[in-house]
């Protein structure tokens, strides 16, 4: 193909166009948007997206061609059975920076380099393709907005950042995209910033993601430290260093216990840290809380960012680094468990929400949980396939919901109520296109057989049941053991036992984990089918309830009329809109409360909105055949094989079983039987919804249930109070800490260093100042007192003796003074006959034997004839006794320092 001649595979500048078009669009819309008007903005942004999409398609074909070439080359010249070279198209833009590697001041160059391989090619197509559709949709959806240009600038910028994320060739560059999409998400959630709640939701999203970013940074650092590289191929080449160091398992000791150190392998730490980042971006427990609030943004944003693309970047990262994650079966098990827990947890909340976007938001969280469940058990291609199918049906559902809200808003003129399903119903008549598209997407997400969701979700569940991630350290012994068992029929014996012991040393996921997660998944799938059909039925079936929007009080008084009552606090169920929603409600009562006339009927959305929804609906229905594993139609699986093939179970050159993801024995036979629970989940969930919300007899059941368990319902409606719990613990804790820090800064730090010091100085100054009265009498009195003091001092003799020791000779020297005379008495002996003066009188020299001590008395008489005396004690310490002697000599002076080591 000419394309590869035009752009070299290692200098594939076409990527610059894919990336550059949305960036240029963002720039021009942001800067000139207001001047060129809405039509100009529409033209610029759509052109940018179409150019990008077109270039992406070309790149896709070029990659396919390149892969073919590489393969042929390899067949011709390569070693039989050797590793096939990776085929990717790369473009080095410029060198970015050089960071430390930890290898004695070594440097690691981080480049602005983009590359596209099979995985990123699919993501690229999804982003530009669905991005284009959603841009088209937005041109109409946002048509009345004053900040039209700002919206498209942000949206284009988002597409650019997302493309940077998936096309980046190294982790720091991926992080640029990762944060870039976060920033765009922040700006778009708070797009209508004049509502406090929207701005708060944006901030919450950003900060929750920042928590995850700490994990990302930590993970990158660990990888850089052990692998010495941060680009994909570099990590892949050195990934073994994360678990093995010179043939021995590498461990990081976290802390010492009595039972030996608690240690993890660097692979586990890196993978857990990166997974923390993924929970932030992909809204998993514990960081999922921002995503439901993010629905404050315009609906196309929810479709593009918070359903189809950005929130799947965590999945993309795990798929991208699949070879790293499988090195830590522990992390894989954690990912699977978190995914399953999130899938179930979010589904329970979605069961009772009334806001149509909230239902979809929690459904997104739940579906993301399914994806993590899939990759957590090593079914990378199915987890990734669910990313793609989810992009189809969830984008369709959000856009459809956008059409509904658009229609409702035209009638109700209230932001919150036009999203409330209690005011909808019967829209099937008015908006058939939307209905059919959303119906198709609902079937897909609920898992109706042979729709896209069926193939991806049931495939994941099947693999959850049969897959097993094997610790890389034990692959070799395990393969040897298997060989022993299969070929030599040896099942016991010392050799076999040794291998078994070696395998048992390392952590493996327990055998029951798969089936348990499978059951959780089925339960969550049942709930999914239920709440999605509940949404569909309550929106499109029955009577249209928006003709007359009843006041809040009436709704509360007669809950059965609208199936479900409002909770006591209006903020609680519409929390994203917060307290602010209240005054809006009041306004709307004034405006529309008396408006009983039927008015304008809700209408079908205009074509730029309807067409993307319809296309996505079709994709949701039929997209599943990209990877229909049970039917053995799997173009996507084949396409992705170079990415995921190595970690999957396969026979290596020596005929040994290799790869990290193994399957249970007899897995192939289970493929069809395990589909039954999945289909049942669809049938039960959708049937129950039909019975409750369409069928006449079931219609009172929800109310009855609610009355029976009011606490449970309220808790689910309030999202199990997780936000409140975070508010009370983490946010409150930080807040208290900040309060403490701010107070400490003023009163302790500044208090001691500045205020106390200045107080001391001021105090001394104040005291000294009192002496400076300026009155001569007082000064005279001070002089008199001072002179008296001096006279008094010198009137007394001051006997002071300085002792110098030189060997055994002690020299005592008396201090001189005015007219002093001295008399010495040495150790109880006779005192000297008289006081003497002169040089001789001031010093005395005394010889002392070892261990001897003496008291010397000095008497001093001054010029006034007053005397004073001082007794000086001198002693010559004995040499340390020999260590063997246990008895101490009697005459040892008590103050003698204890000889060292005498014990």
């Amino acid at each position, binding site marked *: 193909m000419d394309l590869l001649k035009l752009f070299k595979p290692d200098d594939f500048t076409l990527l610059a166009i894919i990336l550059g078009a949305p960036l240029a669009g963002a720039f021009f819309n942001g*800067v*000139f948007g*207001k*001047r060129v008007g809405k039509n100009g903005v529409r033209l610029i942004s759509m052109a940018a997206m179409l150019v990008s999409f077109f270039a992406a398609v070309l790149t896709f074909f070029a990659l396919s061609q390149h892969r073919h070439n590489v393969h042929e080359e390899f067949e011709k010249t390569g070693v039989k059975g050797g590793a096939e070279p990776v085929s990717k198209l790369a473009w080095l833009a*410029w*060198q*970015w*920076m*050089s*960071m*430390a*590697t*930890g290898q004695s*001041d070594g*440097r690691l160059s981080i480049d*602005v380099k983009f590359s596209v391989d099979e995985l990123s090619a699919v993501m690229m197509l999804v982003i530009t393709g669905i991005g284009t559709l959603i841009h088209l949709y937005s041109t109409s959806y946002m048509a009345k907005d004053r900040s039209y240009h700002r919206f498209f600038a942000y949206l284009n910028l988002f597409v650019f950042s997302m493309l940077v994320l998936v096309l980046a060739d190294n982790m*720091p560059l991926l*992080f*640029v995209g*990762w*944060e*870039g999409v976060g*920033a765009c998400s*922040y*700006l778009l959630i*708070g797009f209508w*910033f*004049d*509502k*406090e709640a*929207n*701005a*708060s939701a944006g*901030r919450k999203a*950003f*900060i929750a993601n*920042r*928590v995850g*970013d*700490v994990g990302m*940074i*930590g993970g*990158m*650092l660990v990888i*850089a*430290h052990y692998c010495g590289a941060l680009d994909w191929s570099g990590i892949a080449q050195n990934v073994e260093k994360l678990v093995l160091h010179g043939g021995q398992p590498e461990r990081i000791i976290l802390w010492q216990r009595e039972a030996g150190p608690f240690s993890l392998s660097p692979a586990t730490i890196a993978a857990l840290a990166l997974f923390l980042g993924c929970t932030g971006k992909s809204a998993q427990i514990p960081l999922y809380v921002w995503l439901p609030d993010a629905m404050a943004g315009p609906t196309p944003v929810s479709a593009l960012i918070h359903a189809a693309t950005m929130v799947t970047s965590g999945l993309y990262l795990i798929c991208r680094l699949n070879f790293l994650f499988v090195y830590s079966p522990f992390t894989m098990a954690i990912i699977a468990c978190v995914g399953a827990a999130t899938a179930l947890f979010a589904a329970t909340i979605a069961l009772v929400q009334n806001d149509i976007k909230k239902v979809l938001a929690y459904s997104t969280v739940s579906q993301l949980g399914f994806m993590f469940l899939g990759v957590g058990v090593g079914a990378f291609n199915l987890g990734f396939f669910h990313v793609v199918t989810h992009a189809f049906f969830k984008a369709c559902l959000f856009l459809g919901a956008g059409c509904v809200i658009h229609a409702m808003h035209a009638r109700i003129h209230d932001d919150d109520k036009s999203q409330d399903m209690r005011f909808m119903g019967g829209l099937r008549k008015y908006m058939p296109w939307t209905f059919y598209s959303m119906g198709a997407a609902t079937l897909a997400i609920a898992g109706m057989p042979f729709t896209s969701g069926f193939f991806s979700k049931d495939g994941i569940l099947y693999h959850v049941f049969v897959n097993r991630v094997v610790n890389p350290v034990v692959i070799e012994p395990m393969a040897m053991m298997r060989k022993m068992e299969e070929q030599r029929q040896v099942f016991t014996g010392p050799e076999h036992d040794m291998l078994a012991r070696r395998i048992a040393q390392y952590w493996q996921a327990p055998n029951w984990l798969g089936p348990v997660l499978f059951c959780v998944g089925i339960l969550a799938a049942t709930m999914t089918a239920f709440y999605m059909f509940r949404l569909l039925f309550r929106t499109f079936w029955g009577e249209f309830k928006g003709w007359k929007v009843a006041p809040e009080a009436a709704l509360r008084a007669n809950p059965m009329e609208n199936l479900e009552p409002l909770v006591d606090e209006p903020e609680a169920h519409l929390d994203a809109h917060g307290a602010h929603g209240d005054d809006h409600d009041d306004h709307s009562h004034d405006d529309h409360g008396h408006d009983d006339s039927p008015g304008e009927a809700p209408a079908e959305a205009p074509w730029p909105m309807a067409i993307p929804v319809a296309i996505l609906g079709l994709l949701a229905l039929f997209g599943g055949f990209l990877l229909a594993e049970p039917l053995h139609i799997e173009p996507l699986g084949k396409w992705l094989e170079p990415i995921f093939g190595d970690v999957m179970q396969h026979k290596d050159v020596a005929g040994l079983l290799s790869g990290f993801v193994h399957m249970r024995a007899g897995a192939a036979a289970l493929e069809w039987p395990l589909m039954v629970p999945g289909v049942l989940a669809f049938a039960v969930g959708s049937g129950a919804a039909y019975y409750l919300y369409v069928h006449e007899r079931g219609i009172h059941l929800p109310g009855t249930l609610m009355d029976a368990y009011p606490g449970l319902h309220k808790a689910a409606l309030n999202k199990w109070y997780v936000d409140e719990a975070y508010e009370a613990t983490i946010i409150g804790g*930080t*807040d208290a*800490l*900040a*309060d*403490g*820090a*701010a107070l400490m*800064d003023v009163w302790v*730090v*500044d208090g001691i*260093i*500045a205020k106390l010091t200045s107080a001391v100085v001021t105090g001394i100054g104040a005291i000294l100042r009192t002496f400076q009265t300026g009155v001569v009498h007082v000064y005279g009195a001070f002089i008199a007192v001072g002179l008296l003091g001096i006279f008094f001092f010198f009137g007394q003799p001051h006997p002071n003796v300085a002792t110098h020791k030189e060997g055994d000779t002690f020299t005592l020297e008396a201090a001189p003074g005015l007219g002093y005379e001295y008399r010495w008495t040495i150790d109880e002996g006779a005192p000297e006959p008289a006081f003497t003066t002169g040089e001789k009188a001031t010093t005395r020299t005394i010889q002392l034997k070892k261990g001897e001590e003496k008291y010397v008395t000095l008497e001093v008489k001054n010029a006034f004839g007053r005397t004073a005396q001082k007794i000086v004690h001198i002693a010559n310490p004995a040499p340390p006794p020999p260590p063997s002697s246990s008895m101490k000599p009697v005459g040892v002076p008590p103050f003698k320092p204890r000889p060292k080591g005498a014990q």
Partner: protein
Amino acid sequence: MTAIFAAIRMFWPVLAAGTVGALVPRRHSRSERFWIALAAAACALFVVMMWPADATVVPATPAEPATTYPHLLSWLIAIPVLGAIAIIFTPRQAHKSLQYVSMAFMAVELVGCLLLLKLTPQESGMWLEETSSWIAPFGIRYHVGVDGISLWLIILTGVLTPIALFVSYGSITNRLKDFCFAFLMLQAAMVGSLVALDLFLFYVMWELMLVPMYVMIGVFGGADRIRAAVKFFLYTMAGSMLMLVAILYIVFKYRALSGEMSWDVNDLSRLHIPYGAEKWLFLAFALAFLIKVPMFPVHTWLPDAHTQAPTGASMILAAVMLKLGCYGYIRFAMGLFPRAAHEYGATFAGVAVVGGIMYGALCALKQTDAKRLIAYSSVSHLGYVMLGIFARNSASMEGAILQMVNHGISTGALFLLIGVIYDRRHTRDLAEFGGLAKQMPMYAAAFVIITFSSIGLPGTNGFVGEWLVISGTFLSQQTLGLWGRSQAIGAAIGVILGAAYMLTVTQKMFFGPLDNPKNKRLPDLTRREVVALAPLIILVFVIGLFPRIFTEPMHPSVSAFVKSFNERKKFEEEKVKDEAVLDPKPEPKVAAVAAPAPAPGANAAPEGAK
């Protein structure tokens, strides 16, 4: 013809930037656009000129560019002083003349600073060294030089001082002459401290900085200005006094060992003092510099000084003066006392993380005065800088120096932006604002961009610095030991808090309903403010996307510094016990006076030691 094409190929980004700069602003007149276009084109030109060449082609004539302008550094000190003298002779009432005169001198100074880039050779050692005797009986010399560590700080000074002064023209209407005089003197003192290699000269410049800043806070400041100015002055003086004692100690020790007086850093760094005394000398130096940085617990002068200072003074204080503390720590505290710096490094790094990064961020979270908040954010950000310095491998130190520049740009811009709203509303209380994005969209956009830069969003300058510092700290085994890992993680957690307080400010000021009636008629950015902000915003992205332009010139110097530091530390640990030791003079050392062209390797490294 081909030459023209080559020129176009080379300079198209300049043209493009100029065109965009001319077309972007909507409501501005032609002359204003001209200046913005010029700013954009200048920045683009800078990128083009500094672009790392693909192939390492050595130019055919490796002529020593260092000797081309041998007195450049002296001129850099002299120009602002001459400007200040010119201001003395300009009439007090002639505001326009005062403005033009001071701006003209600053423009010349900026050109001079940028010449440094053209002239600096890519090698270690001091560049453009200049030595002459000053006070001969005491061995005091006038010795200046620049290397990769101080290079960008000098340029930062050259770029930010005119911007700060330019912005101040809008708000300072009284005593403009004094203000301009103080500003020019301040610039001279700052540049002087950055280039001084003689401790006496450094000390003079270091103290000289205090006076103009004291005047600016004390005369042009807010209501509580006198107290803040005194606090600022006393804090800094307290540290400087201890440093002076330490300087005298080492100078006399040097005389005792060598028989001659010298205050020269190169000479003094040959002196190895026993650890017992070195410890105290180091602590005296470190305290002086850490007060200036400022680091916990001696940081409390900063919020007071910032809240009271006028906008221009705040900008200079945050953007340049604090960096002098970091710079002094590297050049003098670490350069003269390697062993003590090593011993205390890990402890100080802990203080930088807990007391600086985290504590500063937590305090910032609770401030209601916008300027006070940004002052605390400075404490937090400088924690990163100091952490990178303490971690002391070449990558982390490059990150730290880059982060100094980044902080200068983003915090300088933040103070500028706060000044904008203060000029309009005369309050900085966050509760007074809300929903300003509706009324002042350009202002809001600028603020959000700077916010992203401040919280280190990848793609902006903040990320590169933080990333280099954090990764350098994490990967530094020999300097911080195992604690390095936890400190890196602590620093990474500080990133969350940084986002929390900055986004809170942004939200409180710009988002939400515009319900305060006083805010409903505020004008958007004026032309003066746009022109002042434009270079800063452009630099945010230039550094974020092309950090190599900035780290490459500093790389040889930083590597050499780290290498010589480690060698000298090892030497002191092994050889120096009870008596001070003086290394022999390295051979190519310049004899006391004269001889303008110094040989390479004449910096702090005592290569002859081993």
